[in-house]
């Protein structure tokens, strides 16, 4: 990830790239900042445990056959009244092991988040470059579309897409569909800031002489945008991407609270919290507590990381 900021993504360095990276100011300021180190470690830890969930998790909460309803509402570390089984973080209303469900849920949350951000990034970068480079009506139109976009609460976007998708996807894919709807919905409500930043950078970069040099030899606008301007816009994009990853994960949670979330049979962190908040007053605190803490840890560390990146990658703050 840091490579983007220290070397050209368009042409991988042959030798000494890692050495250069380890020696870069970027890595230096990283080592110097405890917040950055800690948040990076936590993020990595969570991401890995999500990726390797099947290996870590004691049970597979997504397999209905494996669930025993009688295990429902088992408090953490206490044997269940009927089945005598006991669970690290207790179980939820369906008798799912909360710990395993969190691991699997985090997978979905991260996947949705990452995919959504990626989608938003690609879309935003493209529109940003185009509007910034060509200007004129193209720009006006794109920026007004951005307005419309911002007018639409992401929940509406979510439902719109949900509805459309419902219309077109064959019924047997409905379950997976929910996830993709989330991705597109969150992505759609997120591309604008990428577009704005990239446009900003483009407006500056396109007047620089290296662009003139490229135009001089008859480079096509697309080549210039992608090979020349884009690499220079990547640092801010990277920052936004990090921060919107956290936002996307949160947004997913909010959407599922409003009823447009991941299916309860394959709950994401957000869905878990939505389910859990129903038990806030009922005494089964663990159903809400653990997922909420995990989400907090994940989002917070990613946010802190992004925050640090924002300063570290800002050349003018060096």
């Amino acid at each position, binding site marked *: 990830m840091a490579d983007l900021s220290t070397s050209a993504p368009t042409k991988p360095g042959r030798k000494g790239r890692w050495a250069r990276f380890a020696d870069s100011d970027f890595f230096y300021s990283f080592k110097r900042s405890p917040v950055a180190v800690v948040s990076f470690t936590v993020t990595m830890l969570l991401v890995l445990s999500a990726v390797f969930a099947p290996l870590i998790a004691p049970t597979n909460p997504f397999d209905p056959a494996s669930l025993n309803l*009688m295990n429902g509402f088992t408090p953490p570390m206490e044997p269940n009244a009927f089945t005598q089984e006991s669970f690290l973080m207790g179980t939820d209303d369906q*008798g799912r092991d909360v710990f395993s469900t969190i691991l699997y849920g985090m997978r979905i949350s991260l996947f949705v988040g990452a995919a959504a951000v990626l989608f938003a990034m690609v879309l935003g970068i493209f529109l940003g470059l185009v509007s910034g480079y060509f200007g004129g009506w193209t720009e006006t139109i794109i920026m007004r579309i951005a307005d419309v976009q911002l007018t639409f609460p992401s929940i509406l976007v979510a439902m719109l897409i949900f509805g459309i998708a419902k219309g077109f996807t064959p*019924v047997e894919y409905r379950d997976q569909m929910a996830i993709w709807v989330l991705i597109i919905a969150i992505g759609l409500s997120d591309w604008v800031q990428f577009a704005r930043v990239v446009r900003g950078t483009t407006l500056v970069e396109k007047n620089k002489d290296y662009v003139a040099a490229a135009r001089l030899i008859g480079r096509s606008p697309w080549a210039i945008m992608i090979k020349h301007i884009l690499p220079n816009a990547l640092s801010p994009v990277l920052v936004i991407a990090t921060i919107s990853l956290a936002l996307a994960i949160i947004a997913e949670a909010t959407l599922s609270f409003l009823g447009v979330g991941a299916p309860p049979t394959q709950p994401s962190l957000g869905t878990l919290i939505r389910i859990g908040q*129903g038990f806030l*007053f009922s005494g089964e605190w663990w159903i809400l507590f653990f997922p909420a803490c995990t989400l907090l840890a994940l989002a917070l560390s990613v946010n802190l990381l992004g925050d640090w990146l924002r300063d570290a990658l800002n050349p003018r703050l060096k």
Partner: protein
Amino acid sequence: MLHRTSALVLTAVLATPAMAEEFQWAGRTDPQTMDPHAVSSAPVLGFLNNVYDGLVRMSKDMKVEPSLAESWEPIGDGEGWRFTLRQGVTFHDGAAFDADDVLFSYERASDESADVRSWFSPVTEVKVVDDFTIEFYTNAPNPLFPASIANWMIMDRGWTEANNAARPDKENGNFATLNVNGTGAFKLEDRQPGLTTTLVPNENWWDEAEHNITRATFTPIQNPATAVAALLSGDVDFVEPVPIQDAARLEASDGVNIIRGIETRTIMLGFAHEADTLKYGANAGDPNPFKDVRVREAVAKAINVDAILQTIWRGSAEAASQLVTPALSGYSAANAARPSYDPDAAKALLADAGYPDGFGFGLKCPNDRYPNDESVCQAITGMLAQVGISAELDAMPVSNYWPELRADNFDMYLLGWSPGGSLDHEHPLRFLASTPNEEKRLGSWNFGGYSNARLDELLPSILSEIDPAARQAMIDEVTALYQSEHAYVPLYTQPLVWGTRDNIELTQRPDNFFILRWVTVN
């Protein structure tokens, strides 16, 4: 454009500081109209019971008792019913109540634009004998008629026509949508749709008041957690429904009481009986296994209802054996047994039905219609998976749910049924069990298209039989029929859980109507 309409806006009344008998209550949904004939939905009828009266009304234990009619008797051997009306009753605006108002209310309620008109489908003619006597003639003997009009509310002809609300208008609304002129125990003081509705006692009500309320305000609160918080903090005195999982905790916490009861709504699984192929899941397109009674029985046996009651319902719901609850008339005590939980038997049944390795299909389920509907469906999915048939659960908001069901987009579905109107076993028989038949208005909610000739044949006589014993015998027969064929898998009757501050006394009626006149604030 904002300015042009601002003139029309009703100015809200400045809420006054709380006093002793000020009563605040919160419910899940706001009654969408104040018009007693426009919509027949529980929230509306339940709420309007406090401001309007019917000819008859339901007592605390769901028995029919006199209201605006002091007495009634059959005409001849079942041509209809004669009602003797109460004298000296006045509407909130002071107008006197008489038979003409009843006639008017009949015309209004049986109008094409009235949702409740099906209550009067058996009625052939209404005769005003004198100012306080009125006769209803029915196409066939109809023992249940008085009970079936318990929620039919009487409006004042003068007031209604003067405000040209003579016909209910649900689409565009009319004066009666926002205003009330009933004979009921309470008067409507202020109505802000979706926000607050304020009632004050009707000091010259014909019946003597049991309550001591000086003003009551109703606020719809969507989010259960918020409602519970409001109750705990004392911001409201009464909340319904209380999420089942919070009941225990609330009972424990001081200042709050929990009132539990069993509702009249039965939750059940329905099958696609007619469909030739499965529509969802792994085996979409294959022949429909649910046509085979053994498969349906297997499903019944595979579901551990006790576990569901134990965990999700925390022991406060009751297992159901048939389409109505024991509390309702026509309950078939003879068929009180329900299929036992027996996964092995279920596997066996599936095996000799030709599905030793089970199959995949789709289970449709609402996620905002009945309490815990979604988690119950999840649990069921798990249990079915344990006997080898894997359900693909598709849970959706009710606004998408009904259209899906009507479009036959299901293999199996979850349904809850509460016999509005008559509160009798015949009601679900008519809507769920009889073969769908448009012009006879039968089986309109029998989505799966279950059909049984004998049942269809018996139904009319059940409806018209006056002798209770004979009637019950027929009901027992059909009950046995649909049970043996596992037309539906009745699961449980969901509990009624209400929460009050501990200084409140009230009565909970099984139909989940909250009757304000039975509330006392201490």
